[in-house]
């Protein structure tokens, strides 16, 4: 297979794609979701969620290591045969497509509420989707470069989040571990979902140039994500307090709302506009990977036409069905639950099957 020949990615690109997929729309709502279940020690839930996601990541890499030239789609066909393999591959395609639909509609919903309340909805769909398609059609390497670029372009954002700390009440973090591990564990359930995104390693692994460093790469990606989550959650906890935090739908943006300059009243718009790039580093890979999956299932050579068809379908769905905020978060909830099985449980089964098959093959020889 020479598919990965001109499309291989460096370790850094691999790290930034995974990190980019993990850090997306979740960051805007995460502090509130944690505060609702985990009380003052919610940030400990993030650390535990981080460890869980590391274990999940390492399982995925271990699976992929068995056949280093395969993406998940190849591996499924190789392991389960042509038809069952394609069926499971289709499940993954559905997962990625619904993911890109959710990210697209959430992006637009946020834009409508915060920035452009009177702009026509379908125009926003095109505005967001066009650049996505432009980047996605060029394949994995371009996505890697894009994610890397966006990572460095958004490095100033954590610094801006230090500004609201002038109103911080650090006592809000006490008591640490109020003797109630149930709250913390309930919080872990939320944070595990926010760390989802490392599953793209299923696709990225064969493209990685230096595959020996795959473990290291996914470790670094998860660590960066963890630091981002921790910073935002702790900032929200100390600036707002648990009672108030649970009232805010997008606490991260409310955090920035009081920042203003004489020439710029609403700083959060600037932040949000740049953050749209960060969100796109979740949406674009999902879009590409679902089109790669379809290409594999129908065994075509070029993914571009599939991508265009998918994008048009996505646009039509987004325009025809414009869900309310509540419905959208309900869909998101179902999707992440589905993702949990696909990303934590499925790889474990796959690993066992792949290893057993390999063992059997060796015996035959």
């Amino acid at each position, binding site marked *: 297979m020479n598919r990965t020949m001109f499309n291989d990615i460096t370790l850094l690109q691999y790290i930034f794609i995974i990190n980019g997929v993990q850090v997306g729309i979740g960051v805007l709502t995460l502090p509130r979701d944690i505060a609702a279940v985990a009380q*003052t020690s919610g940030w400990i839930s993030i650390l535990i969620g981080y460890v869980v996601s590391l274990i999940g990541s390492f399982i995925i890499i271990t699976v992929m290591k068995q056949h280093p030239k395969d993406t998940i789609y190849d591996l499924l066909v190789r392991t389960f045969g042509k038809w069952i393999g394609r069926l499971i591959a289709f499940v993954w395609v559905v997962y990625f497509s619904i993911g890109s639909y959710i990210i697209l509609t959430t992006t637009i919903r946020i834009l409508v*509420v*915060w920035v*452009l*309340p*009177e*702009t*026509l909805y379908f*125009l*926003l769909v*095109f*505005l967001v989707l*066009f*650049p996505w398609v*432009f980047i996605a059609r060029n394949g994995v390497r371009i996505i890697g470069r894009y994610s890397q670029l966006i990572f460095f372009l958004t490095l100033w954002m954590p610094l801006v989040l230090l500004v609201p700390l002038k*109103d911080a*009440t650090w*006592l*809000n973090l*006490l*008591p640490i571990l*109020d*003797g109630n591990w149930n709250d913390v564990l309930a919080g872990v359930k939320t944070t595990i979902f926010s760390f989802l995104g490392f599953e793209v390693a299923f696709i990225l692994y064969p493209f990685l140039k230096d595959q020996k460093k795959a473990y290291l790469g996914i470790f670094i990606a998860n660590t960066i994500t963890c630091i981002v989550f921790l910073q935002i959650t702790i900032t929200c906890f100390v600036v*707002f*307090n648990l*009672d*108030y935090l649970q*009232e805010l739908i997008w606490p991260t*943006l*409310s955090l920035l*709302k*009081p920042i*203003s300059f004489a020439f710029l*009243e*609403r700083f959060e718009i600037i932040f949000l506009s740049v953050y749209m790039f960060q969100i796109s580093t979740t949406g674009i890979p999902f879009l590409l990977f679902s089109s790669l999956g379809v290409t594999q299932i129908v065994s075509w050579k070029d993914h571009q036409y599939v991508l265009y068809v998918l994008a048009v379908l996505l646009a039509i769905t987004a325009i025809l069905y414009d869900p309310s905020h509540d419905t959208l978060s309900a869909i998101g909830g179902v999707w992440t639950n589905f993702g949990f099985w696909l990303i934590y449980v499925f790889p474990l089964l796959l690993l066992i099957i792949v290893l057993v098959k390999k063992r059997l093959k060796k015996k035959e020889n």
Partner: protein
Amino acid sequence: MVKKWWIICCVLVLAGCGDVLDIEDTVVMLVLGIDEGKEEKYTFYQMSPVFSIEASEKSQVLEVQANSVREAAQYFDVMSNGSVVTGKIQAVILSKKLLEKEEPLPIIDYFYRDARSSANAYVVMYNGPVDDLIRLETPDKPRFGIFLNNLLKSAYQNETTADTTLALFRKRVEQKTVTPYIPELATVKDGIRVTGIALLNEKGTYVDSLDIYNSAILLILTRQVNEPVPFILELNDAEQVVSMNISNANYDYTVKESGGTFDFTVEISMDVTLEEVVTENEEAKDKKKLTKMIETEMEKKAEELIKRMQEQKIDPVGFGLYARAYEYEKWKKIEDKWFEVFSQSTVNVKPKIEIKDFGIIESAKQ
């Protein structure tokens, strides 16, 4: 092919231009006043600048009866020569009469729900009918909205009143550990005066007023010593005073749970710079004795203030925060009736003063 796509992209970017709104066609609400009204409604006043050259006045005031900010804005809309923009609001003035009867948060919900509105507008209480304040002629001052904003900002910087923006106000109301407080205004002969801090209960209705001296003590207790806080020590009678600035406060709060209530000890160590020594009193000229006197006076004032708050069942200092942080298990049980419990608490304030500086002249010795 690629070129065509780019053209389409560029055209799409123009989509935002549909929202265009010329400034000449807007009425920018700078100040919103809310007072009690007739027939279960509230009276809303809005002040907005006039940009037209032909108009002789530089700002206009509109008055309507409505139930909410959104409804009022609709009435303002049909009364003015453009669409009313609420996002640039500088101050929300609530009258004392209104705050005595109503919870303010539901009335101004609009400002919190709309992402476009500013979070930095000040919330203040006016001691009198808002009508007087908003129609006040201030020919020697800048536009009223800007003037009010500057007045409050500098009062906060001089540590004579609290800093209460819309965002901070809601945060304090929603907190289970703190009761809200906002700056209080009054009109005097030469214009407007900040008279101190108005204390509200946990729902946001008016309870008590603090003058600027007590306000300064509240600011010290709430850890808001960002700039030097003025403090005046009265000896014997009001004519003999030692005034000083307090800075660099360090706090040590200890909480003890005893028999269903919480006891607090607050140790505050502060640096003092003398500003003025107007007295014949010999004791006041001795550094050690003066230190002792200031400490005693401050302890007395602070404990009186806290007593006063306890009697009203309010907790603007946020003692609840310390109770929650250090005695969580016990706090959890009384969480919902904290202000009740607080009124039974014993609070000891132990100020520790170090006189850093006498200024450039020696206190006159005999």
